[in-house]
């Protein structure tokens, strides 16, 4: 028996908006602790991790561990139908994930579970020279600014500032932000703008973005719900100019 009720439909909506643009299919694992998901995109560029502990939910029951394999596009189509004041209920039956929106009316959708043999990938443990926080909206705006001039973005951090920049054929752009954190090293990596944009769809998950950055290292973007009971994190491989 699995049942999870969430009064804030935006959490699922915003998470899966990002997740569905990264992976086509996903396995959610439910157990008595809560719901989690680990996925790596087909080209091995982006890793995404979602964890919603049972206290995130207004009601949560899961007697036996359960694997829920779904097509993320189908799931997103349904979640898009949620109104912001709707309660969302997740349950399963033989072969379906059942999503119920409770609001002005009770609306119920069934999504067929898919048959995949899936080994949840575990993310690499990396030591980063820097770690800092910036407002999520600032990060998202910077990404859009950079999009005007290039399809690549350089993210860097030094003692004082976090910088996003790009050099394009027709112009350059640079965003600087005084982060006010204790950073002792400089770090810089370049990423595909398109891939960073996919993560930015999760903008309603958290107001703050925690970033770990190194030199030519993957970007670690970590979003935490205010209640501390839910997290969404991403790892994105850098782009490296070879030295030939």
């Amino acid at each position, binding site marked *: 028996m699995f049942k999870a009720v969430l009064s804030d439909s935006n959490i699922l909506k915003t998470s899966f908006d990002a997740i569905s643009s990264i992976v*086509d*299919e996903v396995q959610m694992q439910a157990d008595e602790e809560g719901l989690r998901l680990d996925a*790596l995109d*087909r*080209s*091995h*560029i*982006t*890793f995404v991790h979602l964890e919603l502990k049972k206290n995130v939910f207004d009601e949560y029951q899961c007697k036996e561990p359960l694997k829920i394999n779904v097509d993320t*596009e189908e799931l997103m189509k349904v979640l898009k139908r949620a109104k912001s004041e709707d309660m969302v209920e997740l349950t399963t039956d033989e072969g379906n994930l059942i999503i119920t929106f409770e609001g002005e009316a009770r609306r119920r959708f069934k999504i067929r579970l898919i*048959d*995949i*043999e899936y080994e949840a990938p575990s*993310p*690499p443990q*990396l030591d980063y020279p820097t770690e800092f926080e910036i407002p999520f909206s600032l990060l998202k705006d910077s990404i859009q600014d950079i999009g005007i001039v290039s399809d690549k973005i350089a993210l860097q951090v030094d003692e004082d500032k976090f910088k996003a920049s790009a050099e394009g*054929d*027709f112009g350059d752009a640079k965003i600087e932000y005084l982060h006010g954190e204790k950073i002792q090293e400089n770090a810089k990596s370049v990423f595909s703008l398109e891939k960073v944009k996919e993560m930015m769809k999760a903008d309603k998950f958290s107001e703050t973005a925690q970033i770990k950055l190194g030199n*030519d*290292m*993957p970007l670690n973007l970590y979003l935490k719900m205010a209640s501390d009971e839910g997290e969404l994190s991403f*790892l994105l*491989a*850098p*782009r*490296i*100019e*070879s*030295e*030939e």
Partner: protein
Amino acid sequence: MNKHTGSYENREIFLLRWIEPFFMKLFSENYPDNQRLGQLLIRGLSKRAFITLIASCKVFYDGRATSRLGMGDRTILVKADGAFIIHQDRNLEPVNWQPSKTKLAVELKNGLVYLKGMRRNPTETLEVEIHRGYQISYYQGEDSQDLELAGYEADMGDLIWQRPELIEPGFRATSREYHTPQGYIDIMGKDREGNLTILELKSRKAGVQAVKQLRRYLDCFSDHKSQVRGVLVAPSATDDALEMLEKQKMEFKAMEAPRELANQKKVTLKDYFK
């Protein structure tokens, strides 16, 4: 002694656990019966493996049009991303195909195996009715690289933009993809004397079409007071194109499209998974 043998066996089991994934990277079976073939297809699909099946079959398509392919021996491919492709023993192109994200299902009916690909937008179904399977194989490969290409007009544009002197000494490139009612001009610039110069780039041998295109761009500047030069830039041009250029007082500049690949290394998270 016994103890020694025991630990030896343990080591073998341990090694096997590591070897198995490599061993199982490719699975292949010849002449499976239809029951078995159905199971193997389901297994390959659920592993999201790249399936290759050689079989005697019929193929039915229904969607934007309707097609039917009678009995014959075919190679059927299902790629890891859901691309579904059927090849006959001739021609470069597949006879039937559906793109990635096709949803596939297997059914066993009246002793025959049905492999069915479904798409919703547009609504279409591609069904293979398999009478006899000769060989099925599937593998789970790792390939995260994308094709790198060079030798296109855009690459020529990049080169000229960076090194305009390659066109002629004193030439300055001032804008790319300049919009005119006739389309976008590849590169516009000024020569040593300050004359407006329009470049039309072709990465292969240019014909009269390219000359006509250049002519149309020049005509957009017919009210320009001073001289406007038109230069066709290509590795070579046909005789009638060269003749037409000369007659209309336009020029030709021979230039090859650069074939150097960008030195961008593709890094994946797997590189950090060590």
